[in-house]
């Protein structure tokens, strides 16, 4: 039976490769162990060794074309074998993109023409890569991308030992304890919780792979506080949180600046149809970001209600994956601790995160009142952006619109 040969990850970080030269021509006999072609990876040129034997029935990708890992590049089988069904299968869209079912792990319907799809952790999963269920589960737990793992089971199936090897090599990189860190008398060594491990892996990946840049601004919140106080005095049973206002206003500012609501996808940028904002919630050991979906279409009181229930679930660790995965924008508010201003690390797949400082009473020069000093409530906001998807001016326009609406909440309606 003819077999599809796919582009493999020939280096641990390879996501794409370009075939430089085919060593065989169509119709040649190849056997397991032969060097099928030379592939230019992200690092160097590697020899692609085939594990299939038979006739090279079809070369699907000509030399010079870059393809993502997992893309079919050739078909090997018996001479004179009919490969039409296989070709038809390849031409159907399902062969290129894994059928995306709305699973808990991928709550957002992301449509992408590329062979790779974005998983909630921001890794790419190649299409049709054989792997055991156990290997998939363990890889998911450790936020390892199957695309970067070489399968050693039958037919290249990724099995437990492959994931363990990949995890070990990754964790040696991440965790190699430095000699300076030898525990001394009086020190306590606390093993990593699953959450701490995830935070470490995700944020290390974010900081090392995303070009971050930062914009700072100060907003006057007198109007916002007055509006909130007035509403809450009238509705003591359903008080609105300051965060609910910020989520709503951020969503409105995003509507005017849709580039903020995007995700980098290696060979494309995904513009999200829904503004899903995560709010970082501190837990005893770690943090989690429950996500309010579609903030652009919700009222502040709706957002406030949902936040209340999600934050309660977050504190008791009862959030479901679809309730914390896949934020398209994030807000982190350390104001309640008295922090005046800070910068935050981007939470992929989002492209930006807004860091919110505490409300402070400060004297400001009032231009309309002949430069007299008057006391106002202000807050410092810092936006961290991914420069691959957002340029400085985009971020600045977003901050300008955000400031206008925070200072004049009625502008939300305009």
């Amino acid at each position, binding site marked *: 039976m003819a077999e599809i040969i796919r582009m493999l990850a020939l280096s641990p970080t390879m996501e794409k490769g370009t075939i430089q030269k085919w060593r065989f021509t169509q119709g040649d006999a190849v056997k397991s162990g032969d060097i099928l072609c030379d592939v230019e990876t992200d690092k160097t040129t590697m020899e692609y060794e085939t594990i299939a034997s038979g006739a090279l029935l079809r070369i699907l990708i000509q030399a010079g074309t870059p393809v993502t890992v997992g893309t079919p590049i050739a078909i090997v089988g018996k001479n004179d074998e009919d490969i039409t069904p296989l070709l038809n299968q390849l031409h159907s869209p399902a062969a290129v993109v894994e059928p995306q079912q709305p699973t808990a792990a991928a709550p957002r319907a992301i449509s992408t023409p590329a062979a790779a799809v974005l998983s909630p952790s921001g890794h790419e999963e190649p299409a049709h890569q054989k792997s*055991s*269920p*156990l*290997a*998939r*589960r363990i890889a998911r737990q450790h936020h390892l991308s199957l695309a970067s793992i070489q399968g*050693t*089971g*039958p037919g290249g199936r990724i*099995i*437990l*030992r492959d994931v363990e090897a990949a995890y070990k090599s990754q964790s040696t990189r991440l965790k190699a304890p430095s000699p300076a860190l030898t525990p001394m008398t009086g020190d306590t060594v606390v093993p990593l919780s699953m959450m701490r491990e995830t935070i470490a892996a995700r944020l290390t990946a974010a900081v090392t792979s995303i070009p971050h840049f930062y914009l700072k601004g100060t907003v006057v919140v007198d109007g916002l506080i007055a509006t909130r106080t007035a509403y809450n005095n009238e509705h003591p049973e359903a008080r609105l949180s300051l965060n609910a206002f910020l989520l709503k206003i951020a969503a409105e500012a995003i509507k005017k600046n849709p580039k903020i609501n995007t995700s980098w996808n290696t060979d494309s940028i995904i513009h999200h149809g829904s503004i899903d904002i995560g709010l970082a919630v501190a837990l005893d050991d770690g943090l989690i970001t429950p996500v309010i979906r579609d903030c652009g279409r919700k009222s502040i009181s709706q957002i406030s209600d949902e936040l209340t229930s999600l934050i309660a679930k977050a504190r008791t660790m009862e959030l479901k994956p679809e309730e914390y995965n896949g934020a398209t924008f994030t807000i982190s508010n350390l104001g309640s601790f008295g922090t005046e201003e800070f910068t935050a690390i981007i939470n992929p797949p989002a492209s930006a995160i807004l860091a919110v400082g505490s409300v402070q009473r400060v004297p400001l020069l009032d231009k309309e009142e002949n430069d007299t000093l008057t006391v106002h409530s202000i807050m410092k906001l810092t936006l961290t952006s991914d420069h691959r998807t957002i340029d400085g001016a985009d971020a600045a326009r977003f901050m300008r619109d955000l400031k206008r609406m925070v200072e004049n909440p009625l502008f939300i309606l305009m």
Partner: protein
Amino acid sequence: MALLTFRDALNQALDEEMERDPAIIIIGEEVAQYNGAYKVTKGLLDKYGPSRVIDTPITEEGFTGVGIGAAMAGMRVIVEWMTFNFSIQALDQVLNNAAKMRYMSGGQFTLPIVFRGPNGPAEYLSSQHSQALQSMFAHIPGLKVVAPSTPHDAKGLLKSAIRDDNPVVFLEAELMYNWTGEVPEQQYVVPIGTAAIRQEGTDVTIVSFSKPMKLAMEAAAELAKEDISAEVIDLRSLRPLDETTVFESVRKTNRCVIIDEAWPVASIGTHIGCRVSQECFDFLDAPVEVINSQDVPMPYNHGLELAAQPSVAAIIAAVRRCSYATNG
């Protein structure tokens, strides 16, 4: 503890229970004067007399029906089938009467009856007398089915089966009657519906029952030499099935090999394979392996007869396959 044969352990169970409860009778071909075709009922006629140990003509459907009627009327009955190959004559009685009567009478009748005898292939007996029929009985709601592999369990499970108010199909094997094992001096029972972990291990779960348990243990010993640590589970009961023990083990070892000497289609082995795939999906590092007998009537030629059945070599090969071991 005394070393007893499987046969004597069964005999002890019958004797102890008959002494305990005068409502117990044994009925079947050659069970009384000849002491049983395989001597499992040895001495019972002398001790309990012909009203409780009853020889019958060669009429499986008849005496099985008599047994079921006696159980409905208040006796506690043990029906011995000379072999399970002959039980097919009595299948209608078992399926339609024994398995259904308690249910269809709305609980007015209980059916305290045990159907026991040797099941599965022995040697040189050809197709009609070498059949492992556990799948057929385990298929039927209303029946319990047990299949011990040690003298200890044979005695303990037979006592539980006799005391049970539901029909229990009790599978023995001709080649197992001379197996010996330790049996406690004091009285005990083994509850129906619990599996036993015969050997703890970390790399693969081997599941079997009845006679092939011997192959499973031999294979596990061989595999240990290759540094493959097998956990071996003896199901002991086929219905109800102790799935929890199997699932817990597979979730630990991530691999599962099942051995069942019945034919593969709709067998206990393939059923467990399906259940493991459903309940342990995210824990499996390899497809579940099921080793059944070949899907053919048993050949008479001895070489082919052995080749048609599960073997130590086949188990080792399956374990290597699902462990991705190099010499697999």
